[in-house]
């Protein structure tokens, strides 16, 4: 079964040459495309800011803005084929068509729209029960029904061995669903949605030259290392990352961190 899953993955994936990250930038969004440079480096290939109308009610305008912005980005990163990256892998291409997406995108959800917390469970609790409890906790935090939330949870390392300490994050499902609809209309699809801080930490850890290079280099010259052993060579303090996150370059760094998820 393991070999079969591996074969299926091989058939449905391909070496990623280019990855996209979308991070909140105030009322707008920072869209960044990273491209791979050799075996262990990625650089910023394109960067843009998408400014949808302030009113979330104007669905048609929202959709048009996203379509135009994403089409422009696709054209920028791959002028030869603006409709999307074609692949020789027929299986992958078939899945792309089935998904209705030419590009896949990692998204960071604004911190103010994300709730987080911790829960403790007995060790012998099955995962499904833990999931149900977390769902209830998220719904409670967002003051909505459990069916109206998106969430995730992870077991926190370093427990005492008697109980299971889990960390959870969650957000309202409707806002995210609306966002996914806009992307789908532009033939893009979401691969993952994560908190900004998580993406920022990933980008900061992989940034060549450390966080100081954010101030000395323009964003087009940022380089990221893709090998895990070099990524952990320069540990970054959480406080520093938080400072950068709220700086002007923060959203682009977050977008880069999101895109990096395709390789890290």
């Amino acid at each position, binding site marked *: 079964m393991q070999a*079969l*899953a591996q074969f299926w993955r091989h058939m449905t994936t391909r070496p990623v040459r280019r990855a996209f990250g979308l991070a909140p930038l105030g009322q707008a969004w920072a869209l960044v495309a990273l491209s791979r440079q050799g075996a262990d480096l990625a650089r910023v290939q394109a960067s843009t800011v998408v400014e949808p109308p302030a009113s979330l009610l104007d669905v048609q305008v929202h959709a048009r803005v996203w379509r135009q912005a994403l089409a422009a980005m696709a054209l920028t990163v791959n002028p030869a084929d603006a409709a999307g990256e074609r692949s020789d892998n027929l299986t992958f291409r078939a899945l792309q068509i089935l998904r209705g997406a030419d590009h896949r995108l990692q998204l960071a959800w604004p911190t103010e729209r994300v709730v987080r917390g911790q829960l403790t469970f007995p060790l012998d609790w099955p995962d499904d029960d833990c999931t149900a409890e*977390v769902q209830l906790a998220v719904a409670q935090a967002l003051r909505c029904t459990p069916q109206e939330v*998106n*969430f995730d949870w*992870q077991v926190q390392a370093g427990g005492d061995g008697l109980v299971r300490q889990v*960390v959870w*994050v969650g957000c309202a499902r409707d806002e995210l669903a609306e966002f996914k609809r806009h992307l789908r209309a532009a033939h893009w699809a979401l691969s993952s*949605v994560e908190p900004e801080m998580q993406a920022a930490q990933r980008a900061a850890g992989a940034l060549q030259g450390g966080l100081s290079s954010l101030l000395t280099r323009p964003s087009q010259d940022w380089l990221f290392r893709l090998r895990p052993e070099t990524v952990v060579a320069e540990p970054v303090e959480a406080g520093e990352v938080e400072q950068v996150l709220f700086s002007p370059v923060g959203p682009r760094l977050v977008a880069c961190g999101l895109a990096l998820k395709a390789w890290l």
Partner: protein
Amino acid sequence: MSVEFNLLRYPAGVRQERLRQQLGVFLAGLVGTLLLAWAGLQVVAMRTSTLQQELRRLQALATQQQAQAKAAQQRAQDGQVRQRLQNHLMRVSQQQQALADVHAALQDEAPRSGLKFQRLHIESGRLELQAQAPDAQRMGLAGQALSERLGQTLAVAGLNEVVSSGESHDTRPGVGHLAVAVTWQGAWPALQTGARPDAARRMGGGHEPALAP
């Protein structure tokens, strides 16, 4: 970076992942089943082909054996017919031989005893001979001699006294004299196959001059 969150994971992501896994397992099972079915069909087709070849071979063998059996039957029938013909020819030969014996005996006896043979009739295994003798004594001697020559006793079936109109050395010309007309009967070897029992050989008056001395 020890914790990696993905807000799409629950509740839809996990469901989709499980669905994908189930779909993968289903497709793998389907492909496996189809492969097995294909392989099974190939095996069945091969066996069927082998059996059909064997069937054709056996049918050809059976046809050949039927032809051989038919030929053997035909040969046996031909042999039987040949045997019957041979038997019949042997009977005919025996009868010819017997007839020749009778003919020789009559030719020998006629001049010696003065018998005038009139009629020889052979029918259904029976021989009937009519003749005229000058007297009863010569008739008796001739009957005895003929019985010895033919190897069987000729029984006298009829005896009459008649006036003979023929010439004789002891009668005057133009005057008839008395003679004995006798009928002898004896057995005759019958033809068992092919010959009709009533297909008797008749030796009428035409024989008389031949038998007469």
